[in-house]
């Protein structure tokens, strides 16, 4: 079983960014966009997200499965929910466009605009988050979180986890083959849901217990090398470039401006007059 991360090594402006700058941008974007309900502002954030995504130059064939998931979640779950219940908001007047046949549910102008805003908000966040996984080298996660202030032990554990991924995927594949050789039929698990879950134990238990037993050797090897006695050094060093500093500054400015706009009372739900007139 070949397990690979979705990272695509390319020379684009987003790929060249320091991972710390990308994480800071993601957090600032998340806390900025969630302060607003105004469709106009949410569309601006959606434009920023699409611009960021375009700069990463990700091929659609690599990201289409993620796009399907994002669009399904944003449109079907969030969009339809907010279309009819509008996030629990009560509007003084509601402009009914028409009623759904059979269910007699009213479709209102407020619902349509609110739903469009929430779809834009969800897609914006998802697009920025998606870009990180395709543009950040997994080898840099550990050192990036260390430099962001995570203690050495936890940052090293991230690094170590990434190294264990291919080994454990291979162990799972071997276990599956071994159980099949003993007559275990994963394709035909019989019984009710509970019985079927119990029958997955022959796959999960050997892999987990095998990994734990093997982990004792890693513990001993690290202890013999005096792990944790002094401050760690890292193979990969991260240095901010002027672009990274610019992205971090702009991210913080975006968050500060969004908070200021919100505190001044702007950014609440907005209904275009032409929609209300329909």
């Amino acid at each position: 079983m070949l397990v690979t991360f979705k990272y695509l090594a390319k020379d684009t402006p987003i790929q060249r960014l320091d991972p710390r700058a990308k994480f800071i941008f993601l957090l600032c974007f998340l806390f900025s966009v969630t302060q607003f309900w105004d469709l106009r502002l949410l569309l601006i954030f959606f434009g920023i997200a699409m611009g960021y995504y375009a700069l990463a130059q990700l091929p659609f064939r690599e990201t289409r499965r993620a796009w399907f998931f994002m669009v399904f979640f944003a449109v079907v779950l969030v969009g339809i929910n907010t279309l009819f219940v509008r996030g629990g908001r009560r509007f003084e007047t509601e402009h009914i466009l028409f009623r759904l046949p059979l269910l007699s549910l009213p479709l209102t102008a407020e619902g349509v605009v609110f739903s469009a805003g929430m779809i834009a908000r969800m897609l914006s966040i998802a697009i920025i988050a998606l870009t990180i996984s395709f543009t950040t080298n997994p080898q840099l996660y550990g050192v990036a979180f260390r430099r962001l202030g995570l203690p050495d032990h936890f940052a090293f554990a991230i690094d170590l986890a990434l190294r264990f991924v291919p080994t454990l995927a291979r162990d799972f594949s071997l276990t599956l083959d071994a159980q099949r050789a003993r007559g275990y039929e994963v394709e035909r698990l019989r019984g009710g849901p509970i019985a079927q879950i119990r029958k997955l134990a022959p796959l999960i238990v050997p892999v987990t217990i095998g990994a734990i037993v093997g982990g004792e050797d890693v513990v001993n090897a690290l202890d013999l090398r005096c792990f944790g006695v002094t401050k760690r050094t890292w193979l990969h060093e991260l240095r901010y470039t002027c672009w990274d500093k610019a992205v971090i500054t702009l991210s913080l400015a975006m968050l500060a401006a969004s908070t200021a706009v919100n505190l001044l009372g702007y950014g609440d739900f907005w209904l275009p007059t032409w929609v209300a007139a329909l």
Partner: protein
Amino acid sequence: MERRSLWAVGTREVVYMAIGAALYGVLSWIFNFLQIPGAANVAVRPPVVLPLFFGAVFGPWVGLFTGLVGNILGDLLSGYGFWIWWDIGNGLLGFFAAFALFSTKRNYALAELWAAIGIVIGMGLASLSEMWVSGATMQAVIIENFVPAAATDLVNGLILLPILLAAYMAVAGRTGR
């Protein structure tokens, strides 16, 4: 068995954090994405037992890390990006499962109880965050997010946890660890 503080983070905890997170990430990817035939239709998230197990056996930090980083790894392998509030929710499952103190008390019922508490708190907080992010109502997040996530995690986690704990105790007893 060596008695350690519940909150200690030494070499052993670091290694089991890494193993737990890698296992959770890989198995989440396999079960959710490749969809093992026959298991996919009912066993929605069997790997959820891993943060519960690692939390119960190795402590709250290992459980938290296994759930949080493992969920991120699973999403990275699938190319889904970061859904930080669900990652934190998964971390909390393992964090609260640790309060059963299984490595000292060896009480399976207590382990199940704390695992259930962890699932309700973890999935509850992750679901509630959807109100903030996607503007959904409390009623909507309970029906659309909390109930499906918590119910499948409770069924999968509570069935598989005692099996894994029993297997671990057999190995730990044999090796004296």
